[in-house]
């Protein structure tokens, strides 16, 4: 990377581009539901087999979040666990580096 912040700039462009792409898709596809691809995949299975989606029962009993809100909360929890790990280690490394350079 020639310039110091080259990669940061590329990342920023990619993210902005991604958001732009989303705005464009959601404006031209008025019927887009933005459902999860897991769900879309499951309905495709139902279509291929000719069975109703409700006929696919879990093989092993599983708990499922009673509402979308609770599901969102647990997803946030998952991201938070990751965020804590990442932030903690980066801080640990930064502290180590500071100690090593001042000693």
């Amino acid at each position, binding site marked *: 990377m020639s310039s110091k912040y080259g990669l940061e700039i590329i*990342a920023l462009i990619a993210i902005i581009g991604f958001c732009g792409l*989303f705005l464009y898709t959601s404006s031209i596809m008025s019927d887009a539901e933005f459902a999860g*691809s897991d769900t*879309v*995949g499951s309905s495709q299975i139902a279509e291929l087999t000719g069975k109703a989606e409700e006929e696919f029962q879990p093989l092993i009993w599983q708990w499922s979040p009673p509402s979308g809100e609770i599901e969102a909360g647990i997803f946030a929890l*998952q*991201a938070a666990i*990751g965020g804590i790990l990442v932030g903690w280690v980066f801080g640990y490394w*930064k502290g180590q580096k500071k100690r090593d350079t001042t000693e």
Partner: protein
Amino acid sequence: MHIMEGFLPWQWCVVWWIIALPCLVFGIYQLKKVLEKDREALPLLAVTGGFIFILSSLKLPSVTGSCSHPTGTGLSTICFGPWITSVICAIVLLFQSLFLAHGGLSVLGANIVSMGIVGPLAGYAVYRALRNTRTNMYLTVFIVCALADLFTYFTTSLELALAYPAEVGGVMSSFALFMGIFAITQVPLAIVEGVVLALVFKYIVQLKPDIILRLKVFPEEKIRAARGEA
């Protein structure tokens, strides 16, 4: 990339579990070895694992009008190889099947194979091929992460196609159908994931180059050049 609980016939669940289990056992063995050799690898493991947790919880909208999530497995594949990555993925996928009803216990094997084994293996193959060439280090990380992500979804499509061949055209035709759902949605996400993880790798190299050196993630001269000490 999750196959939902109940959507895979039990015979296939067993097949994928049989493939996944030895990989996990080998991953745990490797993990023990790496950590015994070098305790300082643990924080790096936490960072790469942390990103798998974060990225696989973000469901992002895509061009097909549906949402999907990145996998984040590329970084740990580069630092620790595909088998240790399988172990981290198994933990994340277990969390999601127990608390989120994304995936499930019977299909966990299939989901581990796609996200934790085939995706990382594909990325790892490319990493090995590019590691000692003149390819820019961050470009390598980008390609590996994007491919690990895409191959995860190819594998999910293949797993579903094998279990549900179309009446006309068989496995190939339903593979194309599932690819349309999973893989095309994934292309923009894979690109963003690749760029973001390349940036993260840059910060790791800046903050803690010695662990990257000790694990021989990239040749020393590449790391020095990237830090401007060439």
